[in-house]
């Protein structure tokens, strides 16, 4: 099998993602946990802070709750109905909403912040513990998907994958 030609990289980011790489290199997906929406305050986007039992051995409760609470705060900020949203709405209406072709809405700005926050949380907190958070927007804002990875060396499935690679080797 031909080798792959490595393409150009951004060297500065390399060390930041070292932890994530180490994880992927030695881990296989074991399970997924889905944090559901909390509808107690209406239809605004808010996730439950209840700590799932599958994560009990993997991460401290406070860290998990902090992450979900920060995410909830971001979403509350995006969906806040106040002076700024009225202004944005009225201005957009006056221009027949054509202004959105060139301007980013407040919600989109906050979503970018959320993406950045999740990436940072993954690198610093979740990846070293063998976990991975998926941005809720990729799941229709219905759930926060947390993937649980098992160390390949410790799980029994590792023998299966290595034998496959051995038999179909170059």
């Amino acid at each position, binding site marked *: 099998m031909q080798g792959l030609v490595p393409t150009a990289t951004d060297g500065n980011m390399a060390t930041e*993602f070292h932890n994530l790489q180490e994880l992927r290199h030695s881990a296989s997906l074991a399970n997924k946990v889905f944090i559901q929406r909390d509808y107690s305050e209406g239809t605004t986007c808010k996730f439950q802070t209840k700590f799932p039992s599958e994560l009990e051995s993997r991460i401290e409760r406070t860290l998990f709750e902090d992450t979900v609470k920060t995410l909830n705060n971001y979403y509350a900020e995006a969906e806040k109905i106040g002076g700024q949203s009225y202004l944005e709405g009225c201005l957009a209406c006056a221009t027949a909403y054509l202004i959105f072709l060139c301007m980013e809405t407040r919600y989109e700005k906050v979503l970018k912040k959320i993406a950045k926050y999740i*990436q940072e949380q993954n690198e610093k907190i979740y990846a070293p513990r063998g976990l991975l958070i998926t*941005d809720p927007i990729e799941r229709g804002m*219905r759930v926060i998907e947390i993937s649980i990875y098992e160390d390949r060396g410790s799980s029994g499935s590792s023998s299966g994958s290595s034998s496959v*690679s051995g038999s179909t080797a170059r």
Partner: protein
Amino acid sequence: MSAVMITRKVRKWEKLPGKNTFCCDGRVMMARQKGVFYLTLFLIIGTCSLFFAFECPYLAVHLSPAIPVFAALLFLFVMAMLLRTSFSDPGVLPRALPEEATFIEMEIEAANGNVPAGQRPPPRIRNVQINNQIVKLKYCYTCKIFRPPRASHCSICDNCVDRFDHHCPWVGNCVGKRNYRYFYLFTLSLSLLTIYIFTFDIVHVVMRSVDNGFLNTLKETPGTVLEVLVCFFTLWSVVGLTGFHTYLISLNQTTNEDIKGSWSGKNRVQNPYSHKNIIKNCCEVLCGPTYPSVLDRRGLMQDDSLVSATGAAQSSSSSNSTLQSTHAVLCLQKTTAPLIPNEHTPDDAKPSIAASAEKSPSPKEELPPASKLPPLASPETDAETSIAKDKTH
């Protein structure tokens, strides 16, 4: 090995389930039946053209040039709102991926406990408390999710839509959370436009009749008759519809809820979403935040298809396909963090960075779960694993 995997990059809208039609490479999203929408367009554009052709020259000269100018602005606003309502995503909720669906099934089974054989399992309902009222969330068997409050499944578009109002054939799309305000502004501005054209038609006929006589006027401007007819019938329906939706907005209800009678009657739950203040309700619906679409229609994804190869070209094509499939696996991005090799990574594990720069955040749905593993380990292992797993399916 008799099968070869061919990969190609497709936009995600091409693989979306549901009965929508997409245009302009995923930028436009509509329902399948668009006939009535074309009729709407024809009526609006046709009537306005007649107005500009027959009435406006006379009125601009005899009354004021501001009349056609204002009519033109109103017409443009109506068209903008109509197109915005028709072409945008109403708030479609994507279907659950297999793991999420399984997770929910497991939760349901755990909640139901053991059902004795022969008995039907209880209906799949989840009770949530919203503002101290109990609201029942129903399970959607098509989308495999518990529908969020106020969401409903549109059978015409075959999608669950958030804050589902109704499916409007006149705009050729569902009306939901994301396009309700455009729909309302469309009906409102169309009412104004209809009243405006109707009024100035009458004014024009009266003014001309004073000079030339009634029958001569009708002969000179035959378009007027047509316009008056269209406007007369449109007026009753559109103005009525605007009034109805104004009433719904002031109570923060959807058409769907109103029809089903979800919040009416003494014994039923009171509307938990209403702020009990008309102004607050109106502001929330009309001046609330603009929600983003959660359907990433124009994102790129890999589409793997197994094609059986002939014997002669097998070795070369299979190695090509292995390379392609490797590329396919490496292009998968499960994480939000792109995987960048550094000096510690062995050469054979360096993923293709061009692929990761491409911004396709969601994993491809068709591949089996195990190969959703972010590509980092030896690419050959991943490729072989994914081919092997694909063959077993």
